[in-house]
């Protein structure tokens, strides 16, 4: 049985233009304050007026961005080690990206090539498998960096950080639900991981949107099909918090993905074939309950399929 099967998680599409958080919270029967993480907004972390108004004021800001800055000011050794770790991870990402670009190009060429299917099919499968293996190996190396870091620095045992974490735990204990906004996903994930938030959430209902939804899953995948620079190859960045399984949320799919390009859609879906790849736009609501996913929102959720099509996930 999945360790997360008892969790109740609601993933939402982007909230700026079509906010659905309040109705999702009400629909889940949550009564009480909602602890929110807006660390992905960085220096705008405290700007919660719109969110408070939307939720009727019942908001507790966990202030992970500011708390982390405070920890870094007081625990210089930890800050330095974190900076070194991030620099190492960035260099690893650059090397992975280099290999990835060639692997993706090979796969695209094979998938568009015409010829004898008997010859082409196994080559195509091998090309996609090679990308998967590249992703897997990269992810494993990144995990190893994090394991080494945790083993040598033991961040949660450091007094400054532990004090902040105790405060967070206390605030969370008084709240009926936990919510994570989007923003800068690497920074958001780092802050959530730094304070060990996954272990503090317990069985509270969880709500997350955009980048917030991305970091709670198994894998954090960066994506954009049409960036102004470069070929737009999606990249595995690292493991997510792992609060749910089986799904890769892709916020702003309409703007970030070429959903009418069967080659890109199909390759994306095959590459991350162990997860349901779901583009989430305004109005999308997906609910994880009892260890399975249910679309409960409007028409904002579309699943990318291996045959290159997309399928609406209607409520």
């Amino acid at each position: 049985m999945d360790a997360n099967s008892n969790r109740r998680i609601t993933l939402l599409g982007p909230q700026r233009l079509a906010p659905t958080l309040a109705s999702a919270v009400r629909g889940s029967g949550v009564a009480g304050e909602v602890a929110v993480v807006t660390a992905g907004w960085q220096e705008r972390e405290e700007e919660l007026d719109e969110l408070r108004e939307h939720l009727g004021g019942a908001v507790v800001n966990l202030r992970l961005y500011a708390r982390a800055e405070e920890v870094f000011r007081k625990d210089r050794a930890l800050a330095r080690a974190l900076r070194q770790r991030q620099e190492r991870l960035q260099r690893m990402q650059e090397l992975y990206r280099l290999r990835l670009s060639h692997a993706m190009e090979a796969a695209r060429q094979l998938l568009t090539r015409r010829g004898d299917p008997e010859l082409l099919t196994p080559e195509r499968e091998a090309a996609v498998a090679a990308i998967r293996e590249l992703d897997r190996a990269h992810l494993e190396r990144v995990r190893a960096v994090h394991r080494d870091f945790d083993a040598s620095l033991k961040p949660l045992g450091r007094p400054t950080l532990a004090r902040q974490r105790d405060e967070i735990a206390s605030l969370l204990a008084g709240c009926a639900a936990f919510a994570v906004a989007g923003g800068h996903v690497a920074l958001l994930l780092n802050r959530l991981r730094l304070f060990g938030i996954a272990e503090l959430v317990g069985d509270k209902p969880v709500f997350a949107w955009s980048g917030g939804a991305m970091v709670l899953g198994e894998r954090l995948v960066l994506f954009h099909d049409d960036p102004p620079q470069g070929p737009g190859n999606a990249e595995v960045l690292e493991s997510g918090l792992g609060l749910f399984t089986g799904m890769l949320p892709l916020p702003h799919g309409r703007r970030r993905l070429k959903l009418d390009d069967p080659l890109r859609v199909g390759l994306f879906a095959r590459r991350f074939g162990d997860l349901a790849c779901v583009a989430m736009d305004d109005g999308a609501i997906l609910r994880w309950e009892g260890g399975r996913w249910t679309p409960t929102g409007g028409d904002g959720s579309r699943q990318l399929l291996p045959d290159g099509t997309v399928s609406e996930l209607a409520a």
Partner: protein
Amino acid sequence: MSLAIQQLLLASPPGEEAIRQFLAAHRFPLVEGTSTTFVYKGGGDKVRLRHFIYGLPSSRPMKRVDGTDLWYVIEELPPGSRIEYKLEIVHGKDRQWILDPLNPFTARDPFGANSVCQAAGYETPEWALEDAEARPGRLESVEVPTRAFGGKREVVLYLPARMRPSRQLPLLVAHDGLDYVRYASLKTVLDNLVHRLEIPQLLVALTQSPDRLREYAGDRIHARFLTEDLVPWLEKRFPLQGNPAGRCLMGASFGGVASLATAWYHPGFYGRLLLQSGSFAFTDIGESERGPAFKPVVGFVNGFRAAPGKPVEKIFLSCGVYESLIYENRSLVPLLQTTGMEVRFVEARDGHNWENWRDRLREGLSWLFPGPLWMVYE
């Protein structure tokens, strides 16, 4: 397959009703593959297509269909081309340049407007059009004291939406900045690219010279104004990065010369340049034929070519292949590359005009200042 005009001409001469139907059935200029038919209906002794494509005769006579007042000329335009033109109507000794009455598309510049022909494959980039979802930045006028020129200079600032004192922004100084806003949609482009996370939030100083042909022609006083007056004044008052990587100069035509010259006179102060259709006239031998306004430009460019140095880290250049300056710009690129600077050069099938410069802004700005689009999902 014959062109629509050729079909019309099968009836010789075509009747008034057939011409009316022909004009009603199509948009003009009529683009059919790589063939583009320019059409004019009206009186005149002669009618000419006056376009601004360097390399082709700039005046192309239009042919009158016998027995009618319909004129036409067919041009072969490569895919993706965008050209600006006017029609010249000749009555006796009178010559009148007019916008194409059959073409609703025009492009404006400080001298007026031109008709625009968009060949097959050209589309106005959607990131240059207003996007209701993009949070708008605002324009704010400031007066900057200047020791270089004496007195004060008015500069308009573009302040991005959601600017916060806690985040230090890069600074972009745009020569002819208000013209960029008026004719190249610079504010809309900045709003959109910031919204799409393709560039970071930028503070942009939109400068407008009262005497650009002098001040932008490699003038050291103008370079001092930017480097010793404007930039320090802004960095004291706004949350700016205040380092070379966070300082960029941009400009088109003479504005490109001013940008390069300012960086060259103050090496290491600026880190980025965006140069569009720069008027980089030079001579290897003899005198330049470009006229007196270019004389100081030639002096500066010749000096730069003799000892380019490495004034900045990254330079983005663009130029239209239908403008005469393509030669100068192409000549400059290998020289820049020898200095160790990161150089990107982009050509377009377009001319020396503001929409060409607009259409290259996304590529240039996002290369010089990559935004956080891979990391931020709001």
